[in-house]
C-alpha cells in the first residue's frame, strides 16, 4: 500500500510538472495581458514537433533539440504576438476567444499538412531510458529526469520573477497595470518579452512531455481543458498557484486512475468545480 502511494505520487508529480511548465506561460499572459489565449497549446505542439524533427531529420542530440524547441518557439511566438496578438489586447474576451480558436484551427491544419498524421516521433537517448531502483520500487528514468529538470526551470523562473528588475516590472504590471504604464514601464516590450517567455516555456514543456503526451496535430484541442484548469484553479497572474494546481491535478488524476479507474475523469472536474466555488479567484489568484 505504502509503496503504491509512493508510485502514484511520483507519476502524478511528473505529469503535474509537465502540465505546469506548459501552462505557466498561459497564467502569466492571461494575468498580465488579460488575453484569453485558448491557443496556448499550439506553442506546446510546436515545441514537440521541433524536438522530433530536429532529432529525426538532422540528428541533433536530445539536449540541444530541447533547447531549440524553447528558443524557436519563443522566437516564433514573438512574430505572432507582433502580427496578431498585439492588435487584440483589450479587445474584449469574445474577440480573443474567437481569434484564438481560429488560430488553433489554422495551426492544426498546418501541422497536419507539414508533419502528417502520425504523432511526433521521439526517441529518447539511452541514458534517459530504463528504470531507477529506489526504496524497493522502480522509477522510470525519464520521469525522474522530467521532475528534476522541471524543478530547475521552475526555480530559475521564480528567481527571475522575484529577484530581477524584469520580474519586478512584470509583477507591477500584473498587479497595477495602469500604474506600471504611468511610471514609464515599456509595457509593449514587456508584454512581448513575457509572451515570448511564456510561449517558449510551453514549447519546452511540449517537447519534454512529448514522450508522455504524444504530440500530433490535434494536440492544441485535446489538452486545452487541462491547461485551462491548471490556470483557473491556480489563479491568474500567479506563479505559485498553477504550480500547486498542476501538482494537484497530476496527483489526483493519477490516484483516481490507480485506485478507482471506473470513475474516469470525474474527480478532476469535480475538484475543479469544488475549488473554484470555494475560491473563485483560484488558489493564488491576483485577479479573476
Amino acid at each position: 500500500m505504502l509503496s503504491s502511494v509512493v508510485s502514484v505520487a511520483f507519476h502524478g508529480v511528473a505529469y503535474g510538472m509537465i502540465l505546469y511548465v506548459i501552462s505557466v506561460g498561459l497564467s502569466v499572459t492571461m494575468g498580465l495581458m488579460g488575453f484569453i489565449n485558448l491557443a496556448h497549446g499550439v506553442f506546446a505542439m510546436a515545441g514537440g514537433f521541433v524536438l522530433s524533427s530536429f532529432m529525426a531529420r538532422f540528428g541533433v542530440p536530445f539536449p540541444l533539440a530541447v533547447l531549440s524547441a524553447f528558443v524557436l518557439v519563443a522566437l516564433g511566438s514573438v512574430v505572432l504576438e507582433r502580427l496578431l496578438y498585439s492588435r487584440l489586447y483589450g479587445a474584449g474576451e469574445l474577440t480573443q476567444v474567437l481569434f484564438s480558436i481560429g488560430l488553433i484551427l489554422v495551426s492544426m491544419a498546418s501541422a497536419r499538412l507539414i508533419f502528417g498524421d502520425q504523432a511526433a516521433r521521439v526517441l529518447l537517448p539511452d541514458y534517459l531510458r530504463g528504470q531507477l531502483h529506489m526504496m524497493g520500487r522502480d522509477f522510470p528514468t525519464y520521469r525522474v529526469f522530467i521532475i528534476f529538470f522541471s524543478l530547475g526551470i521552475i526555480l530559475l523562473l521564480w528567481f527571475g520573477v522575484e529577484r530581477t528588475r524584469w520580474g519586478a516590472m512584470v509583477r507591477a504590471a500584473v498587479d497595477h497595470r495602469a500604474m506600471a504604464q504611468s511610471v514609464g514601464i515599456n509595457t509593449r516590450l514587456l508584454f512581448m518579452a513575457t509572451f515570448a517567455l511564456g510561449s517558449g516555456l510551453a514549447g519546452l514543456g511540449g517537447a519534454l512531455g512529448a514522450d508522455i503526451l504524444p504530440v500530433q496535430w490535434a494536440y492544441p484541442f485535446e489538452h486545452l481543458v487541462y491547461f485551462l484548469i491548471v490556470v483557473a484553479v491556480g489563479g491568474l497572474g500567479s506563479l505559485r498557484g498553477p504550480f500547486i494546481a498542476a501538482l494537484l491535478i497530476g496527483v489526483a488524476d493519477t490516484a483516481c486512475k490507480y485506485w478507482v479507474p471506473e470513475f474516469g475523469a470525474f474527480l478532476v472536474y469535480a475538484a475543479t468545480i469544488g475549488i473554484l466555488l470555494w475560491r473563485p479567484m483560484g488558489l493564488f489568484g491576483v485577479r479573476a
Partner: protein
Amino acid sequence: MNMFRLAASAALALAATAVSAQQTVKIGFITSYSGLNGNLGPYMERAVRLYLKQHEKDLGGVKVELLTRDDTGPNPDKARQLAQELVVRDKVNLLAGVIFTPNAMAMAPIATEAKVPFVIMNAGTAVITTRSPYMVRTSFTLWQSSYPLGQWASKKYKTAYSLVSDFGPGHDSEEGFSKAFEEGGGKMLGKVRVPLQNPDWAAYMQRVKDAKPDVLMVFIPAGKTATAVMKNFSDLGLGQAGIKLIGPGDVTTDEELPNMGDVALGVLTVHHYSAGATRPQNKAFVAAWKKEYGQNETPNFVAVGAYDGAAIIVDAIKALKGNMDPDKTMEFFKTWKNPNSPRGPISIDPETRDIVQNEYLREVKRVGGQLANVELETVATALKDPWKEFQKKK
C-alpha cells in the same frame, strides 16, 4: 502535399473511367478525415482508390464515382446528415466507409429506409451489422481477434489483466478475451476501461504492474494512443517484471511501429492483417501501395478492410453489369468470397452479412532493419464473428 496529390489522383481516376461511360455507379463514401483519429480516413480512401484504379478495366465500361465526405470523427449526427444527403441529393447506389461505430449506427436507419446497401469498411463493434439488413462488413469485429487471442493465451498463461478503451470496440475486446481466457482455465486479475482521450498512462500501467499478471491484454484505438501505451509499458518496466504484452492487432498497427521503436519488439498480437505478411497477394498489395503513395507509406488493417470493401463492390458491379438493384446487390454480397485477399481467404457470412476470415498470431520483429508484425501461426481459420455465434446459441 497529400491534399494536392490526392485530388490530382482522384481527378485522374475519374477522367480515366469517364471514357466510355454509359453507366455510373455512385458510391457515397463517408469516413473521418478530421477530428479524433482523423488520420485513418485517408488510409481508407487511398485503399479504395487503389483498388478501383487496378480494376477499372474489368468493369466493362461501367463508371464508378466516389463521393467522399468527412464525418469529422465520432460525430453521428453529422454522419447521418451526410448519408441522407448522399442518398437524397446525389442518389448514390451504395454507402461505404465509416471508421467509428456510432456513425455507422446512426446511418443504419437511412440504409434500411432508402434501401441502399452499406459496406462497412472499418467500424468493428460486433452489434453493428444487426442494425440494418442492408449492411455488410468487410473489416473485422473485435471478437474475431480477441476471442482466439484469449483461447491462445489461456494455453500459455495462468493470469491476465485487461486494459481497454472505454467504448464499444473496447468492451467487445474485453468481453471476447476474458470469456475465452476464463473458458480455457485462466484467471482474470482485473479489467480496466480507460477514457478514449486519456493523457497519461503511467497510473494504469502501475496498477497493472502491481497486480503482477502473467499477461496484459490491451485494446486501444490504433494510432498515437497505442504508441503512448507501448512507451509507458516499457518505461515502467512491466516487461522486466515478467509481464507479457498481448492484444488484438490495434496495439501494434503497422504504420505506428516506427514511432514505437524497440519497445514494441516481442509484442504478441492476434489480428487478421499484417503489412509484413509474406503471402504473395499481400506482397503485391504492399508493393502497389508503395508505388502509388510513396516508399515510406505502409498500408494497415484499415486499408485492407477498405481494399476488400472496394473488391466486393467491384465484383458486385461486374456480376450485376452495373444495374445495382439494392436487393440483388445484397444477395450478391451475402455469397461473396475472395480467396485472394491480402489477408488470406475471406468471405461473407450469408446469415449475418459479416466478414469471415482467418486470424493470425503475430510477433513484432525486426525485418531488414524495420519493425514488422511477423505472422507466426494461424490461430483461427474461416472464423465467423464469435459474438453473433454466442448470441444464436442463447
